[in-house]
């Protein structure tokens, strides 16, 4: 099947500063793609290029099989939702929804139908006659989504739509967006710096850094098999624990520790040399369970963060600090000796120099 959006060899530079470099990306019909990265990685820039809000330097963009590289944003068949909502403050909600349509000369009856549908889907019917200033943040963002919805397009672009909301609203609206995607089944590209949003919403995640896509994959792939150290560190909270050491026949050696890496699925065959060994806090077991794991260590509790569902504990192991996610019921005290263990098969190992996954 032809991809819904195809980005081909896209380059973008402002003068001498190159922002996006020879970027390729295909997004399938009905796919929910999340562009994830820290600020300045080029994710919003890429989205703006797709929307046609930025003139690209080289390359091509196809939407729905059509070469839209030189098309105006409004002619690309997209709808867009912004972080700051970008509602027209002097117009009512209805005005916001209909302004673009009226301008495009859509017949009145059809406008009314589309508005009614969007309002129903988003449950904003009672708000239609209000002005944005009289709405809460969540309501405003619903209206902003509605404005994209009434355009009746195949592709939705979201530019950090939930970043301005508080945690509770963010979680609620996230669910709604997910449901919306399930209902509409159209292509969505969603930019965020929030990994929870990325993990929960995405069919695939593209992790970006410095204008490049570091890894493109399903949330599970990204989580379990991060392609490089940056991705591994970026995803997961608390971050993956790393051991700085050396990989050889005997396994992984880091100063005072040595263990085998049996069961580890090497990406391109086993390689030896300096390496990072990474293991996520939630893959480290404690107490009796730790005994069952191939690698066992012992450390002193240094910091305890009870979250209710889980308890995060920072252990001092030698001169290293290792985060461990424990069951919410366990309540270690600072200074307690804790036994930990993990299975190298669940770990990620990266080349020391290239930081690529081994």
């Amino acid at each position, binding site marked *: 099947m032809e991809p819904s959006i195809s980005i081909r060899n896209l380059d973008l530079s402002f003068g001498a500063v190159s922002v996006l470099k020879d970027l*390729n990306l*295909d997004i399938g019909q009905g796919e929910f793609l999340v562009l994830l990265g820290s600020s300045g990685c080029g994710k919003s820039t890429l989205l703006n290029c797709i929307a046609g809000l930025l003139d690209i330097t080289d390359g091509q963009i196809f939407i729905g099989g059509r070469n839209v590289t030189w098309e105006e944003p409004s002619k690309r068949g997209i709808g867009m939702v912004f972080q700051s909502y970008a509602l027209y403050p002097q117009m009512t909600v209805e005005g916001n929804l209909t302004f673009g349509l009226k301008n495009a000369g859509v017949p009145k009856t059809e406008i009314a139908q589309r508005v009614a549908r969007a309002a129903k889907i988003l449950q904003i019917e009672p708000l239609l006659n209000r002005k944005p200033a009289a709405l809460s943040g969540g309501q405003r963002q619903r209206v902003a989504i509605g404005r994209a919805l009434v355009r009746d397009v195949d592709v939705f672009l979201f530019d950090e739509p939930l970043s301005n909301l508080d945690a509770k609203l963010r979680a609620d609206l996230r669910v709604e967006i997910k449901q919306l995607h399930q209902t509409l089944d159209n292509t969505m590209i969603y930019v965020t710096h929030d990994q929870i949003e990325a993990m929960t919403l995405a069919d695939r995640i593209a992790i970006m850094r410095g204008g490049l896509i570091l890894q*493109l994959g399903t949330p599970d792939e990204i989580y379990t098999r991060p392609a490089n150290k940056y991705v591994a560190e970026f995803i997961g909270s608390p971050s993956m624990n790393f051991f700085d050491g050396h990989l050889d026949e005997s396994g992984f050696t880091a100063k005072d520790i040595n263990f085998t890496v049996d069961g580890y699925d090497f990406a391109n065959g086993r390689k030896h040399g300096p390496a990072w060994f990474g293991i996520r806090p939630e893959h480290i077991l404690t107490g009796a369970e730790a005994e069952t794991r191939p690698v066992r260590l012992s450390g002193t509790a240094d910091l305890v963060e009870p979250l209710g569902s889980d308890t995060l504990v920072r252990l001092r192991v030698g001169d290293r600090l290792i985060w461990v996610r424990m069951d919410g019921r366990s309540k270690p005290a600072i200074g307690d000796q804790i036994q930990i263990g993990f299975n190298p098969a669940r770990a990620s190992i990266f080349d020391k120099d290239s930081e690529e996954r081994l």
Partner: protein
Amino acid sequence: MADVTTNPAPRIIDGPRGRKPTRALSGRNIMIYGTLIVVALYYLLPLYVMVVTSLKGMPEIRMGNIFAPPVEITFQPWVKAWAEACTGLNCDGLSRGFWNSVQITVPSVFLSIAIASLNGYALANWRFKGANIFFTILIIGAFIPYQVMLYPIVILLREAGLYGSLTGLIIVHTIFGMPILTLLFRNYFSSVPEELFKAARVDGAGFWGIYFRIMLPMSLPIFVVAMILQVTGIWNDFLFGVVYTRPENYPMTVQLNNIVNSVQGVKEYNVNMAATLLTGLVPLIIYFISGKLFVRGIAAGAVKG
């Protein structure tokens, strides 16, 4: 859904690619730059005429075209305007007025900004009962024609024994600069995050401490705007300068008026133009230097209602 980032095979096909081609002479550009250039010419025309005329001799001016560049450039009009032009018996041109203007402008600008910034600060951060009433009166005061206030101020200054003194004039400039400046500062200080202000209070800083150690250092843009407005306004003032000072303290604008209107025989347009340019030079230089800061400062202070 193959992972395509690892597949650098050429994917570009024929058709639109890269930057949308735009011609340098597109209709849009012609419209934008055309309009800007035409308007710029309209704005520059008077300056051009002033400069050109000030460099011509009188015979050449009489022959006619005010737009023609000078055939023979002479700086005599400038010399005359600066040092020789007469008002009555005094023939020392604008030079005397220049130093008077400096003496009037510097303390007036300083005092008016100091007071207005304190007012704005008190209004924005230390509201007290009735403050807004005073402020509203002050703002309405900005609309009162100066002529209306001329006489009451003569009486006030007389009662204070300040009439005719430089101090009196400085006070007058401070009073009439106050409304707009206070508005600017109040708006600017209102936009300073309240947390900052609260943090300082928790740290034990008082009214003056916060003003000097927190507000002042972070308010450079608005001070620049205030300074530009005041220097221009006070330097260009004619009415107060002529009414509230003695001849030995006359500012440059008053002398400009005297020179331009002291028609001795034929109007010496070249000298008049040179005198006009000389008088406008100080504010013009300030604008040329700090134009960018001005816009930035206005964005910070004036625009937030």
